């Protein structure tokens, strides 16, 4: 039976307004568990707290209330650098640094860069369905889908246990988006990589299947199996979202 790898217990977070302005509560009493090897879709209207939730999971933010547990231990007891290696995050817009794809894959703290071999780099590209010829291509000249794959390959080299993807297909055409989802599903199924994917695109969510966490107004509205939740939505907020009346 898969073990619980991540757990949110009553997590709340608010962003303080600038210059004494009133703060905004982004997450409110969020609770869920994530088992090793699961695929979790985080879905919901804009401003619902989806991306903030991802940022909590790799310690870009810390909760005001509640706690996030990783392997049963409070995330705050871990070294943030260790957490970011074990729970990797890729951003909505992949950032490519100057130089080639190889330079980008090697862009990491010195002690970790030294441990990477040519085979590691080729293996990481292979994992994201790119061949070794990409290693010497200029990263800035790649297509959006290729950049997103390189960004995923770059974090895969850290050998994470959990991969957090923030809107990975938002800038991709449907074909490229489909290929990317196929790639990350393969990573999940063949390598047992636990996935948490924030997406607006319901096609992407359906293809990824797994579990669905519907967040609205910073609260978990639905936590259930993805396909069933989308085919037979029971909550009005989910129905509105599917009908396109929620942003």
């Amino acid at each position, binding site marked *: 039976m898969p073990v619980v790898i991540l757990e949110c217990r009553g997590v709340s977070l608010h*962003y303080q307004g600038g210059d004494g302005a009133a703060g905004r509560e982004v997450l409110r009493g969020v609770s869920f568990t994530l088992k090793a090897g699961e695929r979790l879709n985080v879905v919901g209207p804009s401003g619902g707290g989806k991306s903030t939730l991802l940022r909590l999971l790799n310690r870009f933010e*810390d909760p005001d209330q509640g706690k996030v547990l990783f392997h049963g231990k409070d995330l705050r007891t871990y070294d943030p650098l260790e957490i970011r*290696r074990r729970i990797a995050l890729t951003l909505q817009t992949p950032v490519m*640094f100057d130089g080639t794809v190889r330079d980008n894959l090697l862009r990491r703290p010195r002690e970790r860069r030294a441990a990477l071999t040519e085979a590691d780099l080729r293996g990481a590209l292979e994992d994201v369905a790119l061949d070794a010829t990409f290693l010497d291509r200029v990263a800035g000249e790649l297509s959006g889908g290729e950049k997103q794959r390189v960004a995923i390959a770059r974090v895969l080299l*850290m050998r994470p246990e959990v991969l957090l993807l923030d809107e990975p297909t938002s800038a991709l055409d449907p074909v490229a988006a489909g290929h990317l989802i196929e790639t990350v599903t393969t990573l999940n199924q063949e390598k047992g990589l636990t996935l948490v994917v924030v997406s607006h695109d319901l096609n992407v969510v359906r293809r990824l299947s797994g579990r669905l966490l519907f967040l609205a107004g910073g609260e978990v509205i639905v936590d259930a199996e993805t396909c069933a939740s989308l085919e037979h939505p029971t909550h009005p907020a989910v129905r509105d979202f599917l009908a396109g009346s929620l942003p």
Partner: protein
Amino acid sequence: MTEVLDIAPWRLAAALLLIAVVFVLSFRERLGLERSLLMATVRTFLQLFLVGYVLRAIFALEHWAPVLGAVAVMVLVATHTAVSRLKRRVAGITAFAAIALTAGSGLTLVFVTEVVIGVRPWFDPQYVIPIAGMIVGNAMNGAALAGERFQAELKNRVPEVETLLALGFPAPEALAGLRQEAIRAALIPRGRPVSDRCDADAHGGGRVHERPLPRAARAAVLHPRPPTAPPPGRGLSGRGR
């Protein structure tokens, strides 16, 4: 030529003619600067008048304590001015700027007065006070420029910084590029070509990212705060990584 010039009051008053030129220009070109010019002139006049009396007292005392006190006041005013130019206040920034300005200006002042000029006695206010004014003024401009540039770069390069943090870089390393830009901005000679300034300013500008930086990066910007008193945007985690 070592004697001190005695400037007659009518000569000082003649300086007002230069302001009058600007005043007339503003009036003729309808720039609307007359009121602020008038206010600035009166304020400057009063400030220099008061400073003159204070300096006269300091000169008369012939003691190191008031001289150092005057330098300390300069550093405090410079700290306040430099910090007030920042668009976003960060916890601990005033103390940080005060330490930086005191250390930087202090060491430079000692070097210039002791090694370069050889002022005797070492606190002679005739030399120490004007030289300190120039050094502290330059340090203040440098600190303000560095701070402004750092914040502008930070606002403009959030995705890059976040990517580096996500790749396991400690915050100081993730922010190293921004720090270099800030130091460069502070050290560029004041007489650089206008075109350079425009390029630099364009580079430092950019769109505003609504989401605050990760805590780790914010913590590295300056000192962490206790979790109960978060800075603008969000609180610092206090890990300083």
